[in-house]
């Protein structure tokens, strides 16, 4: 499943923010509402620039960097779409925060025993066949919920029907191999901090290319080192033997 956010339909009411906070049992008051960065207590934000709006939330990538780098598998992409976090596994290395191309995962810096915090695309609701809290709360249909392919088709239709209202780009179709959150906008998304120079191949490919050599490296390396030792060891054994022989010769001559 996926989310389509159409910024041209957004009125900046922030009901998605509030619904998200309620869903994740986070405090939401005027102070929180005024915050414009994602944090350990605010998983989605609606950004405002003049009369334009833009949402930021976890993109729930198809092949997420965070899940691939997590040494203990605390982050996981589910078949249904959400990228979930199992907090009991997490040891707090924060590699997910470093690796995420959108810098989405946040940390509870103020706590002695912190957890990673991010939008996990309401996995309980999605598994129960219900839309995410933000999509359900959206009064204008700016955030809509559905099958990823259907949403891409819908987004293409909107671009076709109203080319003048949009930048001709569906952000999230190809970025880092595709994401479960898709964006349509009338202003370039980079103006709201989205990275645009992203590769179209999934990020995990970058490390996997290196990691996939390990089994061969171990095998060949062991054979090579063993072989070198076999030669050098033989060489020193021969040297030893020759030394002994010459010692014996010397002894004989002396006699």
């Amino acid at each position: 499943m996926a989310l389509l956010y159409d910024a041209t339909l957004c009125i900046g009411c922030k009901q998605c923010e509030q619904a998200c906070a309620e869903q994740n049992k986070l405090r939401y008051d005027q102070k929180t509402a005024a915050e414009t960065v994602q944090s350990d207590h605010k998983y989605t934000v609606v950004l405002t620039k003049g009369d334009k709006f833009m949402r930021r939330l976890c993109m729930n990538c198809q092949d997420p960097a965070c899940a691939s780098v997590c040494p203990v598998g605390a982050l996981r992409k589910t078949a249904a779409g959400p990228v979930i976090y199992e907090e009991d596994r997490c040891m707090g290395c924060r590699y997910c925060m470093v690796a995420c191309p959108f810098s989405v995962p946040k940390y509870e810096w103020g706590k002695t025993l912190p957890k990673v915090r991010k939008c996990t695309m309401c996995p309980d609701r999605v598994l129960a066949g219900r839309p995410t809290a933000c999509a359900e709360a959206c009064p204008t249909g700016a955030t809509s919920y559905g099958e990823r392919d259907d949403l891409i088709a819908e987004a293409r239709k909107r671009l076709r029907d109203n080319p003048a209202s949009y930048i001709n780009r569906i952000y999230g179709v190809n970025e880092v191999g595709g994401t479960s959150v898709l964006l349509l906008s009338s202003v370039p998304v980079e103006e709201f901090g989205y990275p645009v120079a992203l590769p179209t191949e999934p990020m995990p490919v970058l490390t996997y290319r290196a990691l996939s050599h390990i089994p061969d490296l171990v095998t060949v390396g062991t054979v090579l080192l063993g072989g070198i030792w076999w030669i050098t060891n033989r060489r020193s054994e021969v040297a030893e033997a020759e030394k002994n022989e010459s010692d014996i010769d010397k002894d004989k001559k002396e006699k």
Partner: protein
Amino acid sequence: MFRARINLWAVVLWLVLPAGLYALVLRLVRGLGVSTALSDSFPWGLWVGFKLFAVALAGGGFTLAAVVYIFNIHRYRPVLRPMVLTALLGYSMFIVSLIIDLGRPYRVWHPVIMWNPHSVMFEIAWCVMLYTTVLFLEFVPAVFERLGWQRPLGWLHTAMIPIVIAGVILSTLHQSSLGSLYLIVPGKLYPLWYSPLEPVFFFTSSLCAGLAMTIFESWHSNKAFGKHLEFSLLAGLGRVLAVLLSVYLTVRFLDLVHRGVLPLLKLPRTETYLFLFEAGLLVAAMVLLYQRWVHTHPAALYLSAVLVLLGLVANRMNVAITGMQASSGTYYFPKWTEFAITLSLVASAFALFWLAVKYLPIFPAGEVVPAKRPARAPEALTELIHAGS
């Protein structure tokens, strides 16, 4: 002179260790937010940089183990054990700083049962666990010799070749994987440092760091213990170091050319200056190491080794901190607590090295000249330890 220097070290220990201990308490009780300058925008800082070079400096352990055991070049045996000890201490520093840096230190063992073979960090966790075990096995004969336990010595002697081969493979994997950590951040690490060849660079430079550390340590051991220094041996290592450094610098230069990022050096940015600082130190060391007179003057050789070590520390810090700064949108500078813990770890490693050399057969018998001058440092240390408890 000797006395003055040792007292200076004791003073450093006295200043650094209590500060580090207090910082550690802050870290464990109040959490990372209070004890570090880290933030959501800059989640990895000084401790990660420190881990990167602690492991690089441990590179001498596997390099010399390979030289002595696999290549059977026995001339270098006298420097092997000090380097294995250095590596063991380097890895211990890595593990301790990792535990301190983890948000939930008590879960450090999780990778043992929770697997994700696609993660570089998972690979690193296993390499560290296994290679630290290997280093322990390579080092423990020194303890057995001291205790006179012949039988376990015999067992270890029989098993040593497979142990050393495992150690070399694990080190190769671990050194390179620390570079692989950064393969996944092409958009975040500044292009002067981000390269698909990062694992190769980390591995090659760890060989350089290992050899430089050998020279560095032999010089200090000579000063401190009057250990008879086989200078021709170190000069030989210096020549190998010159060649390895040349290879490393050439590959790095070609990589910058092929990626077309050399024009970045025209920009008046912090990254440019710190890159030039790093490169300058290494190039200067390389040029020095090719000079014939350097190989006949211990102090000059020592200085070259120090330049290599500083250059590689600069490299690791640039990768971990400088290179990640611009994309983060914030300015990270470590808090005093981060410095205090890092310096305490370094100081403890020096102190442990000292104690090990004092009480175990680290340097070949007869080479440690029994104190002509009063050996003040261990006493100072014992006093410290008593005062601390």
